[in-house]
């Protein structure tokens, strides 16, 4: 797993209080990991801070699973 993927997983485990085993690429923040709309906003903000990127709202809307977050950040992280 890439360094980015490791960091993304760690943030999700911390913020959503879930087990590492639940954080699979297909796992949806809201449907599988118990996030509500505010948790999702907080996650995106943490990604922005950790990876020093700015994620526009229209793109943030397309980040709904662990895998989508990893791919987006692998592409955009500085």
């Amino acid at each position, binding site marked *: 797993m890439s360094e980015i993927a490791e960091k993304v997983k760690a943030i999700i485990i911390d*913020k*959503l*209080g879930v087990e590492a085993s639940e954080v699979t690429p297909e796992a949806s923040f809201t449907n599988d990991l118990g996030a509500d709309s*505010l948790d999702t*906003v*907080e996650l995106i*903000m943490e990604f*922005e*801070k950790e990876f020093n990127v700015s994620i526009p709202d229209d793109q943030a809307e397309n980040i709904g699973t662990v895998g989508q977050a990893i791919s987006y950040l692998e592409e955009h992280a500085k």
Partner: protein
Amino acid sequence: MSLRRVVVTGLGAITPLGSTVPAYWEGLRAGKSGAAPITRFDASKFKTRFACEVKGYSPDNYFPTKEGRKMDLFTQFAVIASDEAIKDAGLLEGVNKDRVGVIWGSGIGGLKTFQDECFNFAKGDGTPRYNPFFIPKMIADSSSGNISIKNGFRGPNFVTTSACASSSDSIVAAYNFLRLGMADVIVTGGSEAAITEAGVGGFNALKAMSERNDDPETGSRPYDKDRDGFVLGEGAGALVLEEYEHAKARGAKIYAEIIGGGLSSDAYHITAPDPTGEGVVLVMQNALRDAGIRPDEVDYINTHGTSTPLGDGAEITAIQKVFGEAAYNLNISSTKSMTGHLLGGAGGIEAVASIMAMQHGIVPPTINHFTDDPELDARLNFTFNKAQEREINIAVSNTFGFGGHNTSVVFRKFRD
């Protein structure tokens, strides 16, 4: 319409003396001080470096990490104390939750959350990175909101804010809603968690707090000649108030009856008490009239008594004006001598103290009395230093807040 009777059927507390009602009461009756050096932040540069913190507190002992992180400390305290009261009252089963409300009190709300978020912003380059939980954690009504969400209570729900009178106002508001028939049960009380840099620094700037750093445990000394200000406390006190017929029908244990509430304003100064005590005279008269009792029927007054030079004297002057000769038969005590001042949580924990005093026939003391204040009438019984046994039929709890808000609540031993 006739007003309905309202009784107390559940109690909860998390305080500097103990984190449950029995532990709190044990501390009160033993005359224990909750004051100690501040551990929540580095206070070495502050004028006051001690406070009454809830001891050994960790949110992880009460909440899953994710849940705890979404609540400011004052809301965590609110949920913990109300959980104890709700369980004590047996409210979770067999009650129509559409008729259960929550009316909570907090003078400030999420001060730590507010302070930390503003600090983070100031540290940055001007790019706003506010946490999405900032506002819902900070606003004072997140306390009553969280209590209702956790328990499914769909009745009236709001928070009263009147500084240090906040949770007596919430209790009176709950009493009014219940006697008017707008709900059958209301979880009420209040909480505060202001032992932060902003809280301590702010109250220090007002010159309102004791600076007795060399001896924290004797910092809060209401009615002592050398009192030098209040000691900041934190925590929560919760009561379940219930319409009497509703309580009877479900066989609830009844602690006491609430028989009156009075409110008034000093209309004098934003922080200083009116030295003539006129607003405080008015509030006690209003409360006694609402309760339909004479002054000589009152046994115990749990005073506001914060240990400030001006405030303590004004309240005693007012008590003597209202009670006259009967004042000499009263037990008077300020439990803030032990708990410190919980600000918007004071009315909650002091109502619990008054009701426990009634239950046990024991008046908790005003500790830390060393030197009589010649300005105060020595014939009054301030219950100095040691608890006193006394059959209490009627107790009055006084709280007053910055802004000139005054509130008194009257409890009576329950009789069918």
